[in-house]
């Protein structure tokens, strides 16, 4: 039943099972069918909260929770249950430690979809659970903030867009009203005042609402209200074919188009048993590192700009433009959208392009050296960035942060090293960390990652094997599921896919790392002055679109 030979030693799973056993929690079986590289444990719904409590006590990282409702259409044939069983909603929660992934799974009846919340032990899940509540109608009985999150005024309370009885076009074609009556947490006291900001911000930036409580210049509390760019991505995924799903995944967050497309394709390929050609895998790694470099360089400039250092901003904007033009020249798209497709990649490199790319990497290395040296050492930058927006290690850990936000606060997790997928399984990826946790540390992390990615890309080009760049995606069996896990530039990107019996998508969920870095921003801004919010925000740069879905 348990296919041990394909798995590396999973040090903590037996202890976790023992602890569940000790409390008399019923674990139905453990396998990893369809969810490779993760293992799977099935639990009773009533044990859902206890499973999180035990996991938290063992220090496991929670990588997110999502609900899988009964199929939209056609319901009878695609159900994996016998017809006489009542319809259920499946919940899946993903845990990780030392690069080993475990998926907890449970089911609740559609007629009474209630179970304990995991948020009391993993505060980073707060909004993910409320997202499942608003879109699928799962009720988390002891959730500390049970009010709506993703739902504003586009659909009514008690109606759920991912349920079969909800029309794709919606139920109300009148103008959608502005959101109102959202219960922001109030803070009162002498001299405490509120600053509401957004959804439309002053710059060229995504929309969202920030509610500050401040006293004088000092931020006492920040609460983000997101969901303004909710596009119904999970609903739009239903019924798509694999190619269509990959395109949709590429537009979850435009700045992470490579990472999300890769994660979705990984999930599709694992669910259908597709062998991706080695050359395609190396090219995917190249694309993903290019995306990392582009975003970090742009953001380093923007962070400096937020403290008045326009010089660095213009230097970085120039380099980013060079980089994007090269992406257009070599791969055919400035942001690298739709370059990854199910089964492989859409574009190949010839020998001349490989040589040009190498030269460009070297040119970029030389170009960033003097600029990064200034960022590292300029006293006026240090004055604004050091100790600003400090995220404590324990907050980063409790919230489940990954990527440069976690690494700058002392948490050294990186899928490319800790759970390596090809092509990274053949590379040595070092993951240094910073302990300071401030804006300056996040900038240093990003500068390091730019240099590292340039080296990794050279290594990938050296290892670029000959061969095809794509394979046919085999037909997936009905109900086949797959998990995709990719280290995007923001951190761990997770994708879950379930197929219907007609080879089309029944369920797609993509968890951007921003789900956990938005709450980190709310914590790290505490005690800073209001005018430092932009630089703190940019140093984290969570995606609105990636979170709103």
């Amino acid at each position, binding site marked *: 039943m348990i296919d041990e030979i394909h798995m590396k030693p999973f040090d903590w799973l037996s202890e976790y099972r023992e602890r569940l056993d000790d409390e008399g929690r019923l674990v139905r079986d453990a396998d990893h069918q369809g969810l490779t590289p993760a293992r799977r444990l099935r639990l009773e719904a009533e044990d859902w909260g206890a499973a999180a409590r035990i996991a938290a006590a063992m220090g496991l990282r929670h990588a997110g929770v999502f609900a899988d409702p009964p199929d939209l259409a056609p319901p009878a044939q695609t159900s994996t249950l016998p017809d006489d069983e009542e319809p259920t909603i499946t919940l899946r929660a993903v845990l990780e430690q030392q690069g080993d992934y475990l998926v907890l799974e449970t089911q609740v009846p559609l007629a009474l979809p209630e179970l304990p919340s995991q948020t009391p032990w993993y505060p980073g899940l707060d909004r993910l659970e409320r997202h499942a509540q608003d879109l699928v109608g799962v009720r988390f009985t002891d959730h500390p903030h049970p009010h709506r999150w993703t739902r504003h005024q586009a659909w009514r309370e008690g109606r759920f867009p991912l349920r079969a009885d909800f029309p794709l076009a919606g139920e109300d074609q009148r*103008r*959608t009203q502005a*959101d109102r009556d959202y219960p922001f947490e109030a803070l009162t006291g002498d001299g405490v005042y509120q600053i509401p900001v957004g959804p439309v911000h002053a*710059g060229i930036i995504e929309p969202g609402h920030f509610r500050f409580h401040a006293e004088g210049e000092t931020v006492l509390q920040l609460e983000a209200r997101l969901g303004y760019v909710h596009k*119904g991505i999970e609903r739009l995924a239903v019924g798509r074919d694999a190619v269509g799903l990959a395109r949709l995944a590429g*537009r979850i967050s*435009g700045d992470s188009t490579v990472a999300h497309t890769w994660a979705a394709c990984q999930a599709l390929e694992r669910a259908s048993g597709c062998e991706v050609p080695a050359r395609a895998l190396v090219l995917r790694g190249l694309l993903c590192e290019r995306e990392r470099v582009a975003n970090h360089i742009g953001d380093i400039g923007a962070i400096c700009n937020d403290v008045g250092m326009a010089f660095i901003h213009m230097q970085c904007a120039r380099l980013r*433009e060079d980089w994007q033009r090269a992406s257009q020249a070599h791969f055919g798209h400035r*942001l690298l959208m739709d370059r990854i497709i199910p089964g492989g990649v859409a574009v190949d490199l010839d020998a001349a392009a490989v040589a040009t790319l190498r030269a460009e990497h070297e040119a970029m290395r030389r170009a960033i050296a003097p600029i990064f040296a200034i960022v590292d050492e300029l006293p006026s930058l240090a004055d604004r960035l050091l100790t600003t927006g400090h995220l404590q290690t324990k907050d980063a850990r409790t919230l489940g942060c990954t990527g440069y936000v976690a690494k700058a606060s002392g948490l050294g997790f990186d899928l490319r090293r800790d759970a390596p997928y090809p092509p990274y399984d053949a590379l040595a990826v070092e993951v240094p960390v910073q302990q300071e946790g401030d804006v300056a540390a996040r900038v240093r992390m990003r500068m390091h990652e730019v240099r590292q990615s340039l080296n990794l890309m050279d290594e990938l080009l050296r290892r670029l094997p000959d061969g095809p760049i794509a394979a046919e995606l085999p037909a997936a069996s009905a109900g086949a599921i797959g998990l995709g896990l990719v280290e995007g530039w923001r951190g761990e990107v997770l994708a879950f896919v379930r197929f219907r019996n007609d080879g089309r998508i029944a369920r797609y969920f993509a968890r951007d790392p921003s789900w956990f870095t938005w709450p980190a921003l709310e914590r790290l801004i505490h005690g800073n002055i209001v005018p430092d919010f932009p630089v703190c925000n940019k140093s984290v740069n969570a995606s609105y*679109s990636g979170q709103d879905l």
Partner: protein
Amino acid sequence: MLRILSQALRTGLATEPAPSTDDAELAEIGVALQRRIDARVGRSLALRQVDAGSCNGCELEIHALNNPYYDLERFGVHFVASPRHADALLVTGPISRHMEAALRRTWRAMPAPKWVIAAGDCACNGGEFGCSYACRGSVDQVLPVDVSVPGCPPTPLDFLRALLAALSMPER
């Protein structure tokens, strides 16, 4: 400080013309754009950008308009923080219903001529998202659109061409 000066000197002028195939085109569009702005507005053109459900790909390319290569401001176009200062509204995204009211309010706050530019495939025709319970499907479902800029996302040059087209429209 010395290092900054040295880096600035070494970098020189990045603003195009520079060795690139886009050169002639960029300069040509830019000059034409500047002439139209002089004729139509008689001062610089103020743009207000609103993301109404974009995946943020369009925003990245709009940001690029301000980089030293395109340097939009030299043609007399600049982005403003308030719709009350704006001549034109640059809208991206498939108009998520959750942004619908905010978008209408932004438009109402603008003084005439209130040009509206739908930027990107989503804003033009719904793109990958279309019309659903969550999205209106295009800007023209909500506001009168003067110019559309297709592309996923449109390139900075596409944006410049669209601005030129907006300013070449007959008076409403």
